[in-house]
């Protein structure tokens, strides 16, 4: 059943490419809604007990000679990731409703990214997983290079090359596992005892390869530039889904296949994660471009995911998976506000310029959304960010107590830059608005002409924002909904200490 998310989305991508221009966005919307509906249906219909193991859904021989199968499977972790992919995919289409330039192509690339991501989360064959994983990268390039904004070709190329650098490392790790064990089946490989010698070098190669996509410090620099260069939907996909691919790969493949290697290196992962949290938060504090702020905040939040993974206990890892979900939703929401709601109307993302525009009045809905998103991002109780981060920190307390102290300081920084961005963008002081009157002229003459008639927030935008806000609230208020499914699946993995 859930495998149909992949097929429908691929079929939708082809359909969008061939359909007449007028239908393309409706078709894309229907496709993503279908994917989301299926994942939601699977969430409520699949018995919780069934999700404790990585259960096969489809298994068809593909290249039997080399041991490749078309093998899909699902467990609580996969299902959570599929769900966040569905939510983010629907909202990206809603927030791209008024794309005019090469519309069909836009939705084609977008749906390819979504379909590939569904594929990665459901693959139970190492080769298949890698196929989907690499399949996601090229559409991202086009999405950014054709439809992006600031410095788009540079950002797109940087992102793609970083991704493929990670891909090359993953390739080596996968080959090493394949050649040693003679199998590509993830469930079989998870039983195989790899020699410690191999694990010692293959784990860091494989994990680092995946972690590049998850934005691990110091290989995170593609993320802010990529996010800024991407069109809104591109940023939402990148932060919401694509960065999760890396973390998911690290968990499902690297950690699960090479547990001894993982235990040897887990301290170093924790160190990188903590540095990432602090460093990115500190950098975000100094950014003047709203999208850069959010881009760095993504890196910071992904640091929590890595920290959770590094704890190697059920609580920490489950928290990491929950954080992947939560950050996917929140980051998509933040980028939607910054890229679509604000930028489309003001043509600037400079915080100083925005602070003079008194946008809290002009765009009340956007302001409301951004407040919710910021609160969720800061980890205010009641939102998913809190549930996820507190679970991670409890897990980390058992493994690395010092890291929790440092991360606590990091959370203050996160709150600081989020509040700063919130205040500057929507609730700028009136004195500044007078002072920056001339600044406006420099920034964009359009804005001045139509400043009296700011186009209101459109219905698709409201719908998309409500969907994302609902998701973060629902999981924040009732995290058991996902944790009950994630926790048993994590406990079934063999790397737990």
């Amino acid at each position, binding site marked *: 059943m859930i495998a149909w998310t992949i097929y429908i989305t691929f079929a939708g991508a082809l359909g969008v490419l061939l359909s007449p221009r007028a239908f393309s966005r409706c078709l894309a919307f229907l496709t993503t809604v279908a994917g989301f509906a299926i994942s939601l249906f699977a969430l409520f219909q699949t018995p919780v007990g069934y999700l404790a193991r990585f259960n096969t859904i489809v298994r068809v021989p593909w*290249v039997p000679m080399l041991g490749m199968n078309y093998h899909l499977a699902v467990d609580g972790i996969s299902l959570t990731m599929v769900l966040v992919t569905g939510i983010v995919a629907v909202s990206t289409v809603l927030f791209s409703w008024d794309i005019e330039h090469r519309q069909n192509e836009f939705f084609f690339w977008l749906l390819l990214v979504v379909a590939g991501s569904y594929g990665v989360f459901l693959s139970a064959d190492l080769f298949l997983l890698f196929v989907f994983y690499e399949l996601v990268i*090229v559409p991202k390039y086009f999405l950014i*290079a054709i439809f992006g904004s600031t410095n788009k070709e540079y950002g797109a*190329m940087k992102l793609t090359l970083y991704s493929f650098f990670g891909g090359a490392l993953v*390739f080596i790790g996968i*080959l090493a596992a394949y050649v040693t064990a003679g199998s590509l089946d993830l469930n079989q490989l998870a039983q195989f005892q790899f020699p410690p010698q191999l694990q010692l070098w293959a784990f860091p190669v494989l994990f680092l390869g995946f972690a590049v996509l998850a934005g691990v410090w110091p290989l995170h620099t593609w993320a802010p530039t990529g996010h800024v260069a991407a069109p809104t939907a591109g940023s939402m996909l990148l932060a919401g889904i694509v960065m999760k691919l890396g973390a998911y790969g690290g968990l499902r493949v690297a950690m699960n296949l090479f547990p001894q290697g993982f235990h040897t290196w887990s301290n170093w992962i924790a160190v990188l994660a903590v540095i990432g949290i602090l460093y990115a938060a500190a950098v975000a504090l100094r950014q003047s471009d709203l999208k850069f702020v959010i881009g760095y905040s993504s890196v910071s939040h992904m640091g929590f995911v890595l920290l959770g993974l590094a704890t190697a206990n059920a609580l920490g890892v489950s928290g990491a998976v929950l954080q992947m979900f939560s950050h996917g939703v929140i980051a998509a929401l933040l980028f939607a506000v910054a890229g679509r709601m604000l930028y489309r109307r003001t043509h600037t993302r400079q915080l100083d310029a925005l602070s003079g525009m008194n946008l809290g009045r002009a765009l009340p809905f956007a302001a409301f959304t951004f407040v919710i998103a910021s609160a969720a991002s800061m980890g205010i109780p009641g939102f998913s960010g809190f549930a996820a981060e507190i679970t991670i920190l409890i897990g980390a307390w058992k493994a690395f107590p010092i890291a929790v102290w440092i991360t606590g300081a990091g959370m203050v920084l996160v709150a600081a830059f989020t509040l700063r961005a919130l205040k500057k963008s929507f609730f700028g002081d009136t004195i500044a608005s007078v002072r920056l009157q001339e600044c406006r002229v420099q920034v964009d003459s359009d804005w001045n002409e139509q400043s009296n008639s700011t186009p209101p927030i459109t219905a698709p935008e409201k719908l998309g924002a409500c969907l994302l806000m609902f998701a973060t609230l629902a999981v924040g208020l009732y995290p058991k909904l996902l944790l009950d499914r994630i926790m048993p699946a994590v406990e079934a993995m063999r790397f737990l200490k």
Partner: protein
Amino acid sequence: MSYLELLKLASPEGIVVVTALVVLAIGLTTERASASCSAIAALGLAIAIGAVLMLPPKATLFGGMLAITPLTSLFKIICLGLALFTVFLAHSDRASRNPGEYLAMLLLATIGLMLLVGSEELLMIFIGLELLGLSLYVMTAFDKTDVRSAEAGLKYFLFGSTASAFTLFGISFIYGMSGTTGLSAIGQKLSSGPVQPLLAVGIVMTLIGFAFKIAAAPFHLWAPDAYQGAPVPSAAFIASGSKVASFVVLGKIVLVGFAPVHGSADWHAMVAGWSPVLAALAASSILVGNLVALAQTNVRRLLAYSAVAHAGYTLLGLVAGGREGFSATLFYTTIYAVTLVGAFGVVALVRRQTGGDDFRNFAGLASRSPLLAGCMSIFILSLAGIPPLAGFFGKFYLFGVTLGAGGNHGLLWLVALALFGSLISLYYYLIVLKVIFVDEAATQTSPVKVDLLSRISLSVLALLVLLLGIAPEAVVTRIIASLP
């Protein structure tokens, strides 16, 4: 052994020879004979494919001079197929005058390919090599109106004949030391005693000759000029058919003839033999090809340098050795050839419409001809090794076999280097795609006209690249089964 039997077993070659003569005659007697010449050439090649299918599964003539095994039959078909697509390409490339002569040269080169593929004896291999080489030199210099073509032809000829001299010299040493020119007989002789220095010289010289043919660095210097200057169909044929046949022969020579002196290219455990030599060639090709390609602004030159890099990847399978390694090499070189014929097909069409094949001629191709842009992106992405295209599976197979071959991951260094090279290559492939999809056309914005034949053949090639990536099983099992 009767002549009738010889005729029967050599019937594919015979058919191509007859076709070549007929095409030549038509070309000489009638003016404007482009269409009929192409039709006859295509027909002849198709019949030859049929004749290959009718051959007995196993036969040998004259001590291996003409050998028919499943392997040779399979690759004769592949070579004939590639020649067929080149004929289509040449047909739409109206720049070439004297179509009869051009197609006759192409068919003669095809015979060279078939001899190369279908022989297990050094002398015959050399004759095939020379027939192929001489035809290709002429085909390269065929465009009399273009000074670049003449330059390319001369360069190719000078390098090629030097390399042939090396090969012949090497062969003479090998013959002198082993007293035979049959590959399996050489193999037996080599295994019986220690390797004499003179024999080592002979082996290295033979390898140099083939390194030139497959354009492995540092013997690649002719390739960029030939790829860029030659008429597009010639370049396509050099890059595809000639390369496939060379890899088949090289594989047979090293894995059958020189099998006992395999050596080992494992890190920290190198043993003298041909495999460290090939490993060094592969490593330098991957580095040189990919790094120099970064600086290119002409699509054909870029493809040439990437061809150098791909020769390096393909050599990995031979370094790994064994049945698996050879099969990975053959699979990779086959898909590479299919991809390049397609890529050159697109280049030919763009060149005809815009008068050049620099990046700026490709700018905005996506809006001018979505079909060409789509096909080109499939070919380029396959070369870059992006799933689900053929190039990705080829690389996975090749690198997997290579990593598994050395004891204790001894060839990891080579695999890591190759992956590093593919990473570099991604940059320039993406630049090509960026030019096609992102850049706006500078001067002309009229749609690129594509005739029906090119439309069909390009779509077929693109589909083939996609299918070979999604369902490689059919071809891989066939190749594996054909290897002894």
